[in-house]
């Protein structure tokens, strides 16, 4: 049985804003599945529907075979959720939060305390467990949030941008734990991310979502291979973009050509053979050529090819570093 099954899922908000525009996907019980897309693509809306926090407008969604709307109470017992906003109670301690969550999940006696202690140790917060959450750093809050999601031993874990705003060490720590949960405890993981690196390294399979629609899906390697090409990037001045496009239209081995703020991205059969022709054609068209590089496709290029634009901050961890002090 699949951990998650989604058929024709649509969510329209008032004002005819279509956040999710017809999604179909299936996630098996043993995989880490990623949802990659920019802000506003529909990632969080999809997670909120799958975790019973939001009703869909149309379509079906099931978690471990349970319809998320018809059998919401049962779904809540088998899913663990860490949402994008780490949803913390600043006046309580980490331990108090976990104990309350355990009790609301029906645990009694000393079990909630034991469970909280075990989870605090697991996420490396044993020493901070009795401090008020308001004093935690961003990374500590994320780890506590993950512990929260695990209190009741879920079968399916939903993580909404679990590492956004974290420093590299904290991000690595979350990745390690997610892998361990999937590998050792058999928990299926559905996560959303804006980071190409995270999608590439962590996910067994991923879907690229843009404007509420899945535009590509597969393993990271499959997605990269689907381009079937090398990638040649050429830095040019924006005002010469049209001239460059015209000059390169007849290039041998050209599969696709995309323009963005960084310049030209050419998907070609053989980069090393083509790059000289690219420079020559641009030179003949008197287009000024800056840096030129040839590479194997990355998810960034997969995203560019699928959506026509690059994912802002994709795979770029500097933004995360900047926010890490919060």
């Amino acid at each position, binding site marked *: 049985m699949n951990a998650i099954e989604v058929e024709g899922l649509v969510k329209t908000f008032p004002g005819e804003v279509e956040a999710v525009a017809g999604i179909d996907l299936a996630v098996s019980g043993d995989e880490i599945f990623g949802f990659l897309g920019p802000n506003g693509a529909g990632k969080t809306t999809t997670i909120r529907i799958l975790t019973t926090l939001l009703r869909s407008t149309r379509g079906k969604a099931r978690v471990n075979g349970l319809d998320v709307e018809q059998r919401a*109470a049962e779904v809540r*017992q088998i899913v663990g959720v860490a949402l994008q906003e780490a*949803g913390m109670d600043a006046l309580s301690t980490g331990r108090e939060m976990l104990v309350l969550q355990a009790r*609301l*999940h*029906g645990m009694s006696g000393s079990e909630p305390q034991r469970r909280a202690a075990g*989870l605090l140790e697991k996420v490396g917060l044993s020493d901070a467990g009795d401090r008020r959450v308001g004093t935690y750093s961003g990374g500590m809050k994320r780890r506590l949030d993950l512990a929260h999601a695990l209190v009741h031993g879920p079968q399916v874990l939903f993580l909404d941008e679990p590492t956004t705003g974290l420093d590299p060490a904290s991000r690595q720590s979350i990745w390690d734990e997610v892998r361990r949960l999937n590998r050792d405890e058999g928990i299926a993981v559905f996560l959303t991310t804006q980071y190409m690196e995270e999608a590439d390294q962590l996910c067994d399979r991923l879907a690229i979502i843009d404007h509420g629609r899945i535009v590509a899906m597969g393993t990271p390697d499959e997605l990269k291979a689907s381009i079937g090409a090398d990638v040649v990037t050429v830095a040019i001045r924006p005002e010469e973009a049209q001239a460059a496009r015209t000059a390169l239209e007849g290039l041998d081995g050209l599969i696709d050509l995309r323009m963005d703020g960084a310049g030209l991205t050419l998907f070609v059969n053989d980069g090393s053979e083509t790059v000289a022709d690219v420079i020559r054609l641009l030179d003949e068209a008197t287009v000024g050529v800056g840096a030129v590089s040839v590479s194997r496709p990355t998810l960034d290029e997969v995203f560019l090819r699928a959506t026509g634009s690059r994912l802002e901050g994709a795979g770029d961890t500097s933004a995360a570093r900047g926010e890490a002090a919060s």
Partner: protein
Amino acid sequence: MSAATTTVAVRPQARPARDFVRGTWYIGRREIRLVLRTPAALLPGLFIPVFFFFVQAGSLTRVAQASGFVGNYKAFILPVSILFAVSNGGAGLNMVQDIESGYFDKLVLTPTNRLALLLGAMGADFARVLVQGLFTAFVAYLVGVHWSTGALGLIAMVALASLWGLAYSAMGFGIALKTGSAQATQSAFVLFFPFVFLTTSFAPKEALSGWLATAATYNPMTYLLSGMRTLGLEGWHLRPILGALLAIGLVASITITAALMALRGRVK
């Protein structure tokens, strides 16, 4: 992060009533913990009613006695002070914070009964206003307010006021759940003024005239004050006490229904 853990088996909800009571209790306990950890937030609820009592009693006792309407003006004005103590303008603000921070989603994601999320918070709020009302009554007792039904009557009066406080707080919780906005939730306090000023707060009904007398007739607070004052000035008279309970019930039926509808809208 390290160390393997055991997966906890999901519990079937075989005893929904027990789980509902447990959920309400644990949510209420958490709310009380939050209150105790922000003691400064308690001060207005303790200080303002006492201040009001002293100012009103100090400035109007002689006027009231000279008019012949009220013999024991301190006992007459005390219920209004207690109503100030229990009509909690901050009801629902913690819930707004939980909604804004996303913590409310965490609570919603547990299998606990949704009603427990509201009733637990309201129960804690009831405990808070009960303490504030008792404090005001205790201060009045210390300064020598005479009470015809004794300590038991005083407690009964505070209990009546606290039930009103519960009904009133439901309005704040309803707005909190509906809007998720702190500003809108705090605005519920504005509705307290017509309740408390268009009635017999400062003078008995016989002393009111014109539109104010008409407004007081339709204001449930008039009947609440009548019941509370009966306990202080006359004795254990059942009719005004039942009238007070009826008035509270009327307001509660509206505010609690609205809060439940708002809860349903938020967690659907």
